[in-house]
Each structure stands twice: as C-alpha cells, then as structure tokens.
C-alpha cells in the first residue's frame, strides 16, 4: 500500500515537474542571454491559461466537438498569442533598458507583472474561472486490488508527453538551426556576436518568444488538467519555476527541465508525506537553501563576474 502511495506521488510529482520545467525554460533562457530575471514570466503563463479557456469556449461556440482537434487548435492559437505577448513585453519594457543600470530592467519587469495581472483582472474579472473537463479517464497501473493502484490520467500523460516533445523541439532549434546558433553566440558574448553580424535585438526577441511559447504550452496543459485558474496563479507558478531554473543551474536548458522534475517530485513527496499546507513554504525554502549552498545549481557553471 505504501509502495502505491509512493508511486502515485512520484507520478504526480513528475507531472508537476514537467510543468515547472516548461516554465523554467523561459527564465533560464532569458537569464542566460541578457542576465536578468524576467519577473513577468509567471504572468505570461497565467495569460496562457486564460487564453486556453477563451479559445476553447470559442471553439465550442463554433460547434467543434472532437477533443483531440480542439486541443491541437487551442494549443496552436494559445502559443501564437502568448508568444506575441512575450515579444511585446520585451519590445516595450526591456529593450529600451538594454544599457540602463542593473536595477532598471528588474523594476520594469515588476511593473509589467503588475500591469498584466491587473489587466487580466479588469478584463476577465477577479473570480476563479474554469473550463469543462474534456479529457476524462486514465489508466490504473500496478493494480493489485480494488484500492491498490497508481492512477495516471490521460491529461497527466498528455502533460508529460507534450513536455518531452516541446523540450526536444526546443533543443533541436537551439542546437541545429542557424537562429539557434545565433542564440548560443549571443549568450556567450553579445558584443562579439553583434560585431560578427548577428542581429542581437532579434535574437533576444526570439528568446522571449520561445520562452513565452513554452510557458504557453504549460498554461494550456495545466488548464486542461486542473480546469480552474485565476489572475494570480502566475505569481506562485513563477517563483516555483524560477526555483526549478536555479535548482537545475540557471542558464542551462537541460538543467531547467531537470530542476523542474526534481522540484516537482520534492514538492509532491513533501505534500504527500509531510504536510500539504506548507508545500509552498517548502518550495520557497528550497529556493533559499539552493541559492545559499549551491548557487550554480545541478548542471550550471559557477558565474564569474567580469569587468
């Protein structure tokens, strides 16, 4: 029985961790390329959750009945629209501050975060919203009795599979395409890259678009799985995803995913075996502890400040 509970928490943690990992990618890429924490990234995820519900409701009004097609269309539309949000945020609030002092982009990011939260609150209302569940059912794994099984819902499976596919696509983009090579070049040395003809502004914009797109994938999947959201979900999700990014080593893409899974598992086991009320406290404490004892994370390289 305990084994089943353990396995169940592992499944839940893996699912949660995939979501954290998807959001963490946005933090880690932006940090890697311009060295700032994009505080507004959690709100991008929140916007994706709202867009999911709106597009889904729109498709239902148009009379679309097939769930797989609806999910694909919603995913595509949400990624496109959220990526546009990511691009606009960078264009409006960060690009003018490229050469400002270190504090300015951070404060600007807090400002954007407040703007997005209140914009959604004013346009969509402050109450918790929901969507009808369109992905029912699941599998019973390791079933050895009426109550002894590990449940893996279709929605959970969808989250893990989609997260893996998205990460693979992102990795392919960064490692194999010309634009990806430009991204890596800018990350290593922005001035040198621009001297060699890389359009750094465009590369940075692309990074924001990619990060927002990954956050959109997370937003769609979480909304399909849990079904409810409000305008404030971006805050906690943002801190936790950032924790995941730091845990894995900020600036490292595989690190973000690994950090997400580790954090998801840790949080899931903590709430399963210790205490549910304090699971957020646990996650935030983990962030503080990692920063204190291993700031370079699991896969990161120690940061050397250059003059």
């Amino acid at each position, binding site marked *: 029985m305990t084994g089943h509970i353990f396995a169940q928490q592992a499944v839940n943690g893996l699912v949660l961790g995939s979501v954290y990992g998807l959001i963490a990618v946005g933090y880690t890429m932006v940090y890697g390329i311009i060295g700032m924490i994009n*505080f507004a990234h959690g709100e991008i995820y929140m916007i994706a959750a709202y867009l999911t519900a709106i597009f889904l409701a729109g498709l239902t009004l148009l009379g679309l009945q097939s769930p797989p097609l609806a999910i694909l269309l919603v995913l595509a539309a949400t990624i496109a629209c959220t990526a546009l949000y990511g691009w606009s945020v960078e264009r409006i609030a960060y690009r003018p*501050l490229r050469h400002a*002092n270190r504090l300015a982009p951070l404060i600007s990011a807090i400002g954007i975060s407040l703007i997005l*939260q209140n*914009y959604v609150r004013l346009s969509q209302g402050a109450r918790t919203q929901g969507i009808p569940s369109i992905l029912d059912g699941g599998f019973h794994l390791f079933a050895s009795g009426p109550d002894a099984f590990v449940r893996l819902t279709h929605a959970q499976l969808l989250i893990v599979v989609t997260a893996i596919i998205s990460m693979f696509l992102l990795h392919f983009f960064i490692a194999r395409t010309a634009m990806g090579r430009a991204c890596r070049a800018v990350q290593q040395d922005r001035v040198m890259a621009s001297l060699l003809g890389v359009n750094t502004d465009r590369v940075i914009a692309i990074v924001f678009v990619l990060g927002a797109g990954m956050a959109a994938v997370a937003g769609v999947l979480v909304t399909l799985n849990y079904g409810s959201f409000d305008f404030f979900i971006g805050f906690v999700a943002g801190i936790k995803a950032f924790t995941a990014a730091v845990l894995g080593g900020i600036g490292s893409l595989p690190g973000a995913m690994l950090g997400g899974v580790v954090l998801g598992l840790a949080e899931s086991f903590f709430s399963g075996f210790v205490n549910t009320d304090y699971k957020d406290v646990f996650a935030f404490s983990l962030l503080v502890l990692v920063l204190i004892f291993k700031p370079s994370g699991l896969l990161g390289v120690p940061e050397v400040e250059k003059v």
Partner: protein
Amino acid sequence: MSEAKETLLTGLVALLLFAPLTGVSLEGYGLNSHWQNPFLLAGMAMIGRLLLGRLRGLRLPAGLAEYDWQTRLQRPILAVVVIAALIFPWLVGKYWLNVATLALIYVLLALGLNIVVGLAGLLDLGFVAFYAVGAYFYALGFKYLDLSFWIALPGGALLAGVCGMLLGFPVLRMHGDYLAIVTLGFGEIVRLVLNNWIDFTNGPNGVRAPFPSFFGLDFSRHPMPGKSSFHQFFNLPYSSIHKEIFLFFLLFIVVCGMVYFVRRLRRMPLGRAWEALREDEIACRALGINHVTVKLSAFGIGAMTGGIGGAFFAASQGFVNPTSFTFMESAHILAIVVLGGMGSTAGVIGAAVILTVLPEALRDFAEYRGLLFGCAMVMMMIWRPRGLLRSRRALFRREQRAC
C-alpha cells in the same frame, strides 16, 4: 521603417494582443462579447505610438531641469510641511486623520526601502515580510507575553533587523539579482506561515493589537480600577480622537527622526559606500570596501524600519491578519520608492503621501491602482530612472562668483 507603417504595425499587434482578452470575457463556460474594447485599445496604442514619435525630441526646459530644488527650497518647504503637520490633526475628522496616519506609515516604510533600493541598489521584493514581523511581534507579544507597545516597538525593529541580516548574509555574497527573488520567496514564506500556523498566530482570523499608552496613561473612557486614563489625568472631556492625534504626532516624530537619520547616514562613510557600491561593485571591492557588510548594513537598517512601520501599523489598526502582508503591499511600497525617485528622500516622502491619499480621495482610482502603478514603474524606468525630480548628491562645489 516609416512612421505611418510603424504606427499601423503597432495597431495591428495591439489588436491581436487585446482581442482575445478584452474582446470577450469568460462567463461560466461561455463567452460574453465586448467587441469594441480591442478596437478602442488598439486605437489608443496607435495614438500613443504617434505621440511618442513626436515627443521624442522634447526635453524639459533647461531652467526647470537644472533648477536646484533641493538646496534652494529646502528650508521653506520643510517649514511648511512641519507647520501643516502640526495644524492638520486639529482641523480634520477621524477618517482623514486615519488616512494621514497610514500615509505616515507608508512614508516610514518607503524611507526604509529607499535605503535598500535607492541608496544601496539592492532590490528587495519581500519588504512586507519585515513589516509583518514588526506588526506580529507587537500583536503576539501582547497576546502571549503582555508586552506593551513601548517594548514591542524596539523589539519588533530589532527582530526584523535580525531577520533581515540572517536572510541577507548568505544572499548578499552573490550576484545582485538573486536577492530580489530570495526576498520575494521570503515574503511569501512569512505570509504563508502566519496564515497556516493557526495555533500560534490564529491564522487568517488575525490577532488583536492594543493601542499604545501615553506614558502609562491609556486612552479608554473608563480606565481599569486604580489606573488613570488620558482624559481624566488632563481634565479633558473624553474624546475618541485624542488617541488618533497622539498616534499621528508620535509617528510624525518618528518619521522626522528617520529623515534626519537618513540624511546624516548619507554623508557618513557608510552612506557613501552604499552609493558607491550601487554604482560599481567591482571597483569598490578593489578599493577595499567589504561589500557584504556594507550591503548587509543597508539591508538590516531597511528591515528595522519595516519592523517599526509594522508595529505602528498594528497599533493604528488595532488588529493584524496576514491579508495585510501580500506581495501587492511590497509592490506598493516599491512603486512609491520608484515614483519618488530612487535615492531622493523628499521625492519618496511626497510619493508616499500622494499614493496613499489618492486612492482614498478617488475611489474609482483604487480599482486601477495596480495597473497604473505598473505603467508608472515601466515608464519611470524608461524615461526618468532617477525620479521626476532628480536627487542631487552632496558634493563639494566651488563658490560661484559674479565676475
């Protein structure tokens, strides 16, 4: 790209951004249509884009921008502010007195955060945690240990300062941005613990905090047997406004003390080291400044101020619960510091008063507060990162003579 083309592109992007979120709103599982909203907003974005292009070359008139507000107008403004503060409580009712007290609490908090963000250049997003420590130290100290306000005030400040140092010490050794996220996490930890530790803090139901006494005299109408109350001692008719006036003046004295303290600190080697570290950390370390202790002192003093503000907040409200200590509160204080001009004491005080009184005066404004604060923060960072009125650093200047 030509201006017309760029404006059209702005409009198109704005339309795409606004259409799904403002054009329809979720109603249950269905949608309500507000199809005109996105067009209005996109139109506004296009007008904004056009105006921006026109305003780009515009600067403040040289005389206005270069006018030395601080040294020339300092004394008259100071005199007016002090006199106004002395007269004010006798003229207004309880409601506005409460608003003024709240404004002073924000002035105090903003002055504390200004040391951390404005002078030392450390972004503290969990300032509200120290505020909560001060407030809860007083309320819980009274509940369990029967502490009076006069012990809780320094005690809460000290505890908040110690918390700040314990949190800051490991983090301040690292790259500056991490501090922002660690303090953000710490702020949430404090709030969640206060909310969930029901046996000790009474959770969301909050804790009562009594009113401070006036040198041992309380402000009740009917004091405990054997004790004298304020109105009996001074032979005044009982009035509930006495205690509000007392708290206002007490807070006013503390704020004045804080302003003086900050002013002196800025001229001391420590204050100069803060500003130097903010400008160039590597150069400072090369010159032998211990960056950790210098930053830690700023962080600790800021946290202590937050603790003092918290004790006053608990005393003025008579009650504390965790909803007063959300991230929104931290953002509010940060917005005050940013809008007042990071590093400028006068600007920060002005911004604290305006941003506290304005939502009270204009109820409609309160709804849009967060949105406007956010916009203001972004715009300030882009156009006037050192505040609307620039703060001048004390420097040795040669006497200007007419020749």
